[in-house]
């Protein structure tokens, strides 16, 4: 059964909320009462609950099964986090209440900052960026601010080929030219090419480490030294931080700025596309350029928020968002960190890496591994094993849906052909991994046996068959309107 749109339920005249009657009174809106209709139907509560419950059942989430989406760290989302975020003392406080009435909130932000700085060995953190890409923006702005404070007008940022699309997009957004650095055959940045490209016009190098091939950049310290020697800054994309918590500190590796994705590494929910949260840690070189607001401790021991520049000498890059960032995510992330502890975070990274290597070891004979050697928390395969089968990476991924799994990341990173990036995360048990491996091996041998039917039409057992994305883009229908046919 197809679930109708709310607009198709003929409910314009009803509502699912009760409101006390208000007698007429003299309004003070300057005669600007809304005359145009608000074409939004109201569903009585029973119908609304059903509509959204049914919609939810068309979705796949971590709660339903393995979600091995490389580069996205879809780990278990603890319900304790949700419960804590809903404590009235966190969920029901206003960003502009008097500071004296939100001391617990500021203390929480302070604790979260402490954890983030300690686990990276970095001296400063900006909490307010709203998502990973926003964190990148914050980091690159700080870099530009630092150069400008010295009167240095550097104009280029270097990114490896394998970078997330947000990296070049962010660099361009901050007015930089983006130059791409090739990868070596072992999947790492070509350090010679990097050194050759580094000069006094380069403002920064943006590197993801562990990188998007799931590999640790072996020469990261040498890279950092080269960057710094050229007067540039080392921006690290922390999307893959889940592989190295407690195992290695970005601060020890020479990183100047790195964002976290609290929704990847620290278990806050992805929520079907946000809200995320992207705090950024800074080195000493960059910390004076961090954005406002941030928490400061007053002499009397109370906590305060610095919300405005003190004076013209203040080098803060400014304000990135109206209030103080994603408090709801801070609560969840800190809850997660306290639950794990330093010991548990380290164990989590070890288990994430162990799980990925176990998958790699268990599938490398039937799928084509892109790079030799241990991987970090994700294993990268490409489509060579599908050569001449008529099955594409996309087909293979859609067939995974019929096996009860969410597909892995496909066609990313761009440096290998038909990429399949599998990240199990540490919250999968060996039992689950063994089941998953059996399914993947079955699919691989089916493909090689030429049974393409299982792939071409996949998914067969999903709420919808494959959807026509071309039609959607060519003649975009972005909203319901009365005159469209259902």
């Amino acid at each position, binding site marked *: 059964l197809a*679930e109708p749109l709310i607009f198709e339920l003929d409910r314009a005249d009803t*509502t699912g909320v009760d*409101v*006390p009657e208000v007698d007429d009174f003299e309004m003070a809106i*300057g005669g600007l009462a*809304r005359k*145009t209709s608000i*074409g939004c*139907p*109201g569903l009585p509560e029973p119908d609304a609950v059903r509509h959204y419950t049914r919609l939810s059942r*068309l*979705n*796949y989430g971590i709660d339903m099964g393995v979600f091995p*989406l490389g580069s*996205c760290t879809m780990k278990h989302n*603890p319900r304790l986090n949700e419960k804590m975020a809903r404590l009235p*003392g966190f969920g029901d406080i*206003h*960003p502009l*209440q008097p500071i004296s009435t939100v001391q617990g909130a500021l203390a929480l932000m302070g604790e979260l900052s402490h954890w983030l700085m300690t*686990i990276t*060995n970095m001296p400063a953190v900006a909490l307010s960026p709203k998502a990973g890409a*926003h964190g990148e923006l914050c980091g690159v702005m700080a870099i530009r601010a630092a150069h400008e404070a010295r009167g240095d007008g550097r104009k280029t940022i270097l990114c490896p080929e394998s970078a997330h*699309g947000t990296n070049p997009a962010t660099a361009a*957004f901050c007015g930089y030219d983006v130059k791409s650095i090739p990868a070596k055959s072992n999947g790492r940045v070509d350090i010679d090419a990097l050194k050759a490209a580094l000069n006094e016009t380069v403002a920064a190098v943006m590197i993801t480490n562990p990188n998007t091939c799931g590999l640790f950049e072996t020469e990261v310290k040498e890279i950092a030294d080269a960057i710094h020697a050229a007067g540039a800054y080392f921006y690290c994309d922390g999307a893959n931080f889940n592989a190295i918590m*407690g195992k*290695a500190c970005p601060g020890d590796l020479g990183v100047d700025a790195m964002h976290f994705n609290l929704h990847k590494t620290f*278990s806050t929910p*992805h929520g*079907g596309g*946000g*809200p995320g949260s992207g705090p950024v840690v800074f080195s000493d070189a960059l910390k004076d350029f961090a954005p406002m607001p941030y928490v400061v401790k007053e002499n009397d021991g109370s906590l305060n928020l610095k919300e405005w520049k003190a004076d013209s000498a203040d080098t803060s890059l400014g*304000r990135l968002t*109206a*209030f*103080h960032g994603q408090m*709801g995510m801070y609560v969840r992330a800190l*809850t997660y960190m*306290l639950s794990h*502890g*330093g*010991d548990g975070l380290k164990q989590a990274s070890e*288990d994430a*890496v*162990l*799980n990925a290597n*176990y998958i790699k*070891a268990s599938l490398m004979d039937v799928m084509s591994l892109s790079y030799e050697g*241990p991987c970090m928390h994700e294993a990268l395969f490409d489509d060579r094993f599908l050569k001449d089968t008529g099955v594409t990476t996309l087909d293979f991924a859609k067939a995974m849906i019929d096996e009860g799994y*969410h597909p892995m990341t496909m066609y*990313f990173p761009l440096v290998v052909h038909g990429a399949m990036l599998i990240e199990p995360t*540490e919250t999968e*048990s060996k039992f689950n991994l063994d089941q998953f491996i059996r399914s993947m091996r079955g699919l691989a041998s089916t493909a090689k046996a030429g049974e393409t039917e299982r792939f071409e039409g996949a998914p067969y057992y999903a709420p*919808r068959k494959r*959807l026509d*994305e071309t*039609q*959607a883009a060519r003649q975009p*229908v*972005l909203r319901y309107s009365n005159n469209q046919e259902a």
Partner: protein
Amino acid sequence: MRYLPLTTTDRQEMLAKIGVRHIDELFKDVPADCLNPDIDLPRHKTELEVERHMARLAAKNVAAGSVPFFVGAGAYRHHVPATVDHIIQRGEFLTAYTPYQPEIAQGTLQYIFEFQTQVAELTGMDVANASMYDGSTATAEAVMMARRVTRRKKAVLAGSVHPHYRAVVETTTQYTDDEIVVQKTLPESPEAELKAAIDAIDETTSCVVFQNPGVCGHVLDLTPLAEAAHANKALLIVVVNEVFSLGLIESPGAMGADIVVGEAQSIGNGLNFGGPYLGIFATNQKYVRQMPGRLCGQTVDAEGKRGFVLTLSTREQHIRREKATSNICTNSGLCSLAFTIHMTLMGEKGLRALAKLNHKTACDLRDALNGVAGVEVVNQTFFNEFTVKLPVNAAGLVEALAEKGILAGVPFSRLDPTAGLENYLMLAVTETVTPDDIAALVAALEETVK
């Protein structure tokens, strides 16, 4: 560790399968002197211990619901039906990823499509996107979109725009080609704010940004501003950061807006100390391909059944990389779900009734404050928030009232300490404010304002 399923035995078996003897062999690419650093963090805690710790922190805050509460200025405490929070916690919504695999994400995609329609209808525009981080970042994105559309650089930010939003626009565009003209807030002269905005428009202007109701609560007819902008081929960007006002006041679209952005936290979402919130972004059909952020579109599946997909992603960074429309990657998915459920419960009928009740409560508060010596309500027009002029510093007064257990509003100086508007205080109400709350405020003010 309750979240880590592997046992010691599992780990040993898995290491054996991989062919290594110790986990650190898998970390051999990490420089040896950086591996396994000493990190001074507490050990793991039981669920009970974590709850205690967090509850202690939470108890150091004054929850809005526990006191008479008049704080607004961009975030509003409305009543959210219990149903909303129940549904957004369903694992299928909560723990899903961005719907890049539409066959198993129709739940998320269909609600986004419904959300986009609701936002378009509310704002009176043709189309809306799948949401932005919040109202302030949406405003910055709108300014940059106007530059792309008009190929002009100068953006005029009227005095009615929330100072934090102005700051975010300035920060965000500091390394882009945009030029931002910031105008002064005039709490007692909304018409002058409007005139200043009109006067600033010229043939180099990409857009003029006006907030309605303004930061001080004034409600204006923006038709003249739209005409002035359009006469100069500039765009009118209207900011709405109390979306409940759209249930009572004519839509920005009907007043001639080209882009409507704002903060929609009011519907479906709690205060959360400022985040996560819900940016909305709506425009007209002709500008769709310049719009930032995710978009959901309708299509059909291989069997011809209606379905939904993310679309027009050629604007986005994961395809376009350095040529992307914006670096924005995420939206506020779960917040937009909360919005769409709450909006679906209210419908036009419920929203109009609640908006009327909000305004009525604000009128009651105005009437009550008019009786307090020394307190002067400056607004002729407002929705559910207005500004008063005080004989004293507003920040000090708010602090004094907080000690009496009343959260009395936002001093203008909290938003912008440099504006010289220290004696102005903005007070907001919603349907959650009772006559007793108003009486308590009045009594406390009468004691405190001398």
